[in-house]
């Protein structure tokens, strides 16, 4: 007869309120194989764990069932307790009588009966458990950081400073991300570029950082500790080793009609261009869709003027691979598209605001460029249509945000703050101008944030109206903004010279595809999911993959930077060890029985099963078989389900254990 101990937890009131723990304990003691059952108010507490350890020794237990919360919460805790008392940690099972029982039922009778059933199943399973050893995995102490905005830069520098190598991949020609294009930042109004560019230079020069710009992630294989990352280096048409960044090429390039995406279309750029003056690396790139030489074979001026001979029209995309042990995702955000062009069928844009139709209706990032000293107007606020200084500017908050009908239902969090900042920047430059703001609520939670908004209203005289704008039309060179002032209870019409729309924050293009490559979860909008919203905020459910910045959800610079350092900290914790251990609950093939049909090889989502040969001592082929690579198997069980000869099974989760559980029901 097995010697199984059952420990039933009250979880304070969480379980005991609905489950009659005392009665459950009495009933469980009758289950064959159960040596004893015992209840306690907090089994996870120190006295609780001590009791578990003492009982293992005193009763010479062969297995434990902890009936409490989810194994996600405390499996580790109780396995550690078992190990400390000399019991193999994989001889511990948990019956989840909280999430699966007390939290979802009201009827005490029924809930108690169900709790007993759940424990009975777990007893059935634990009797068949076999001692297992954790799998040891070697660790590559080298990190990949995807995205080189302020979050990616922060994470890279932190990890690099700790002495580990970092591979930093950025798909744009320069690092810097959105922050490099901002004017001044709230709530201090310090210049964005002034604080970011030194960090960019540091990143570009750091001996521990290997920088791939104009590059994208093709695929990611392997698992925690040992990822193989395939990177596509897009053809830049520049030999980076020869180029000196002198600027002759882009100065002489005759093609100047392409919209400059760094200025969000407010200026034009050449076909060969430097992303922006402070770009890192300070090397140009040729836009193959704009370059006459690449399109028609004519021109070639840049190659002629390049003294270093760095122009290479024959350049091709290049695929490289890198080995890393941990990955930090910092892919950032983009703005919701207000016009009619959408890349997601859920979003409709705002035809009523005339973005794209009226040139003086712009979005918030465009306004950042207009007020930036490095922007298309040299920092003077001049409207795009005719370059006039606008005397009346309307700022509209919540465009796309908090709008389930046309956009997203969440609050983009930073718009209240940057809109207040925009009114200040505007008023500081156009003293006689009027800044009108239409908002729904002012959300300015943060150190010195609300004070900042009040300053915009009280000191700089921004006019705030609580209400949304319904429509913008153009008449006689004025933008007619029709809105409501819900506090006064009247409709309001404002004749504006320029309108700035605070567009919602969305995850950047391609974030979900990348998440799929990394096997990281994401929400309905494409923001990457953290492992636990409070306790594991930068971890993901894919071991070894961490997230930071706006790829996780709307956030401002301070938050993105804090999170980036947190992710870097997690990587350093991982790299502080010399090897990793993994739970051994993985698949195993009965190779004698395997018919070598390879259904498992084809269906394994982790490519963890390979074709193998069994040979005798003379080297003659005995038979073919499938074989599991324990380094890659995640124990998902797909192979068990598809195997027609029942040769695949999972250690610690065998088919016979599951049958036993069903039988016990």
């Amino acid at each position, binding site marked *: 007869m097995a010697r199984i101990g059952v420990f039933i937890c009250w979880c304070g009131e969480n379980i005991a309120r609905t489950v009659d723990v005392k009665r459950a304990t009495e009933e469980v003691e009758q289950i064959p194989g159960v040596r004893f059952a015992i209840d306690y108010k907090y089994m996870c507490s120190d006295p609780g764990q001590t009791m578990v350890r003492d009982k293992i020794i005193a009763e010479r237990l062969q297995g434990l069932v902890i009936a409490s919360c989810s194994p996600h919460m405390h499996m580790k805790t109780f396995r550690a307790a078992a190990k400390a008392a000399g019991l193999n940690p994989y001889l511990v099972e948990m019956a989840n009588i909280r999430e699966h029982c007390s939290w979802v039922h009201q009827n005490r009778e029924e809930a108690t009966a169900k709790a007993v059933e759940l424990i009975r199943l777990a007893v059935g399973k634990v009797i068949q458990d076999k001692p297992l050893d954790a799998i040891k995995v070697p660790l590559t102490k080298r990190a990949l950081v995807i995205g080189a905005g302020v979050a990616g830069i922060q994470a890279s520098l932190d990890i690099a400073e700790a002495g580990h190598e970092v591979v930093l991949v950025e798909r744009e020609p320069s690092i810097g991300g959105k922050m490099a294009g901002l004017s001044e930042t709230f709530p201090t109004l310090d210049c964005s570029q002034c604080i970011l560019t030194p960090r960019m230079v540091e990143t570009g020069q750091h001996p521990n950082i290997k920088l791939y710009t104009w590059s994208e992630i093709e695929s990611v294989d392997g698992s925690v500790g040992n990822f193989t990352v395939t990177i596509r280096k897009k053809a830049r048409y520049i030999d980076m080793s020869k180029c000196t960044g002198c600027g002759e090429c882009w100065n002489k390039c005759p093609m100047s009609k392409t919209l400059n995406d760094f200025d969000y279309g407010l200026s034009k750029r050449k076909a060969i261009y430097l992303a922006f003056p402070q770009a890192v690396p300070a090397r140009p790139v040729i836009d193959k869709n704009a370059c006459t030489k690449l399109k028609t074979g004519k021109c070639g001026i840049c190659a002629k003027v390049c003294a270093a001979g760095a122009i290479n029209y024959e350049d091709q995309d290049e695929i490289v691979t890198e080995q890393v042990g941990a990955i930090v995702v910092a892919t950032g955000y983009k703005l919701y598209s207000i016009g009619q062009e959408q890349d997601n069928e859920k979003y409709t844009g705002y035809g009523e605001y005339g973005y794209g139709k009226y040139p003086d209706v712009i979005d918030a990032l465009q306004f950042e460029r207009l007020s930036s000293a490095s922007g298309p107007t040299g920092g003077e606020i001049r409207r795009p249509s005719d370059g006039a200084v606008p005397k009346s500017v309307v700022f509209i908050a919540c465009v796309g945000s*908090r709008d*389930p*009908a*046309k956009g997203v239902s969440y609050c983009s969090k930073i718009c209240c703050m940057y809109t207040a900042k925009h009114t200040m920047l505007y008023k500081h430059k156009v003293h006689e101008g009027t800044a009108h703001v239409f908002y729904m609520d002012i959300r300015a939670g943060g150190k010195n944030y609300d004070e900042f908004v009040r300053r915009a209203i009280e000191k700089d005289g921004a006019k705030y109206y609580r209400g949304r704008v*319904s429509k913008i039309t153009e008449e006689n060179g004025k933008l007619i903004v*029709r809105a*409501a002032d819900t506090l006064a209870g009247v*409709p309001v019409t404002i004749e504006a010279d320029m309108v700035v729309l605070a567009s919602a924050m969305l995850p950047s293009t391609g974030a979900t595809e990348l998440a799929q490559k990394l096997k990281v979860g994401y929400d309905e909008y494409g923001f990457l999911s953290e492992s636990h919203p409070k306790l594991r905020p930068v971890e993901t459910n894919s071991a070894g993959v961490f997230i930071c910045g706006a790829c996780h959800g709307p956030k401002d610079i301070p938050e993105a930077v804090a999170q980036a350092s947190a992710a870097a900290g997690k990587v350093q914790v991982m790299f502080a060890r010399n090897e990793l251990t993994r739970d051994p609950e993985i698949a195993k093939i009965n190779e004698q029985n395997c018919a070598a049909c390879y259904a498992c090889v084809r269906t394994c989502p982790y490519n963890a099963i390979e074709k193998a040969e069994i040979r005798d001592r003379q080297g003659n082929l005995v038979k073919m078989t499938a074989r599991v690579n324990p380094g890659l198997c995640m124990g998902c069980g797909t192979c068990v389900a598809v195997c027609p000869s029942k040769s695949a099974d999972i250690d610690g989760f065998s088919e016979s254990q599951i049958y036993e559980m069903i039988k016990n029901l």
Partner: protein
Amino acid sequence: MEVTPVGADKFAGTSIENCYQCGKCTAGCPLADQMDVTPNQLFRLVQLGEVEKAARCGAIWLCVSCFTCTGRCPQSVECVEIIDALREYAAEHDCAPPDLQRIILFQKAFLDNIRRNGRINELELIRDFKTKGFLQDLSLPLLMKDALLAPKLMQRGKFHLTSEKAKDRELVGRIFARCTGTHAEGATS
């Protein structure tokens, strides 16, 4: 304690609970500047269960059902349906403001016209309405104004003096009777 306000069932399916008072309805309404309360204020009253108070507002009778509010509402509130429900409530409980009674009268005359003819007979409708509206508020210019247009319309063949009617008018009468139940709206025939 939950109290179900009078007439609350009329707002089922309108998503009135979703309204977060952004005011976009008011912002786009072509008549908001002439209303005694703005559309978002009307919806607030309904949210608070003040149905009768909302139904007494003149605003509901100024609404032209252009659906600009419904179309742009970020919370997909069926704004016009709420106003319809308020108008229905006001007509049933006779609580429209006196100066706007004639709009109800017109709409009742309109429905009465359909009930009798199956289709709208424009001349008869204008006659009915003008007679009643005239008696109600002595608006002589109103009576005269469209009468002056009539010859022009006829000149262009735009009025049929012998009006068209549906053939099965008894069926139309039965449909009306079933829909209006015990309280036949403005039946005068």
